[in-house]
């Protein structure tokens, strides 16, 4: 680990954009600092000078486990990238990508300039859309029987219904993702969110991300078609975005 200097600030990197991009968001940073463009040789970075008292190694470790801080910071990070996405092509970085010194940021941008330039080219004119499918699983009906034999039959019927619902859930998720993926340049599936997170009682079947042309509407049409196809089976779809293309940035891009 490099020696962390005593400098009171570190550079927080939100994303990378093309050289010459204009973006200044006073006070919009993760800690209320200014968001600025840092020009490197071939690309530019969206950065804030943040306080080490908040983003130094030890405080950061603590803060990341503080739900309120995490929520506020994540939303601020996302808001900055959405502002950038509204005007230009952006490579979004994960939350809390920090450089202790300007030279380190410059070195990173220089070392990865090839990958960064190629990603900017790939992402041009595209956005990430999220599609989630929810399944309202059919409830087993009790027949009121209280004999032993009736109970056994009831249990068997319930288990068969559960298996059928599971098989349908998988088939529906696969078909949905395949059709959505066919309308996209690239597709990813994230883990299904549990109810506590999604805030919905239905079971999440699919949590996909799709890289699509900005505003072309094709993915929305596929969602509409899937909604019609599965409406009778208790499946509903939710579309989110446009997002910066987080799901399509190679892992391990930052050092």
């Amino acid at each position: 680990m490099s020696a962390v200097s005593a400098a009171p600030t570190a550079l927080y990197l939100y994303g990378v954009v093309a050289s010459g991009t204009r973006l200044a968001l006073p006070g919009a940073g993760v800690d209320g600092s200014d968001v600025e463009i840092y020009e490197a040789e071939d690309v530019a970075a969206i950065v804030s000078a943040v306080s080490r008292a908040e983003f130094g190694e030890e405080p950061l470790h603590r803060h990341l486990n503080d739900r309120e801080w995490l929520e506020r910071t994540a939303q601020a990070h996302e808001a900055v990238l959405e502002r950038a996405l509204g005007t230009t092509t952006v490579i979004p970085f994960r939350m809390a990508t920090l450089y202790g010194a300007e030279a380190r940021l410059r070195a990173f941008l220089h070392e990865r300039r090839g990958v960064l330039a190629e990603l900017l080219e790939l992402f041009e004119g595209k956005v990430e859309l999220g599609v989630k499918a929810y399944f309202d699983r059919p409830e087993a009906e009790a027949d009121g029987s209280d004999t032993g034999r009736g109970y056994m039959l009831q249990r068997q019927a319930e288990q068969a219904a559960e298996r059928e619902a599971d098989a349908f859930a998988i088939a529906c998720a696969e078909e949905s993702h395949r059709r959505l993926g066919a309308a996209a340049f690239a597709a990813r599936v994230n883990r299904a969110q549990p109810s506590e997170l999604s805030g919905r009682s239905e079971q999440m079947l699919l949590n996909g991300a799709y890289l699509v042309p900005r505003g072309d509407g094709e993915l929305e049409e596929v969602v509409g078609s899937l909604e019609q196809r599965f409406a009778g089976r208790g499946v509903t779809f939710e579309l989110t975005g446009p997002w910066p293309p987080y799901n399509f940035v190679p892992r391990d891009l930052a050092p």
Partner: protein
Amino acid sequence: MSSRELERMQMPGAQHPAQLADVLERVLDKGIVIAGDIQINLLDIELLTVKLRLLIASADKAKEMGIDWWQDDPFLSRGSSNGKTLEGRLKRLEQKAGIEDDGSE
């Protein structure tokens, strides 16, 4: 799709308070936060996920449901040939980023 979601679609870059779960699953890097100078391997992420039931609970749930079929294949897109080309390039970039990373200190 609700009209509110449609409205969002038509306003790229517009400020909206996105669902926290959707934001977190994007801005957190699977439990590891990369920091340029300071690489923090967040072992405490378990604390975080217990609080949020974000990664761990959802993974278990998916397995329980038997719908973790994608886990070993993030490249499921069967898009147009154009899409495949882009997937290929992304995959290559991903490998390149990983290899370069392994090569550094």
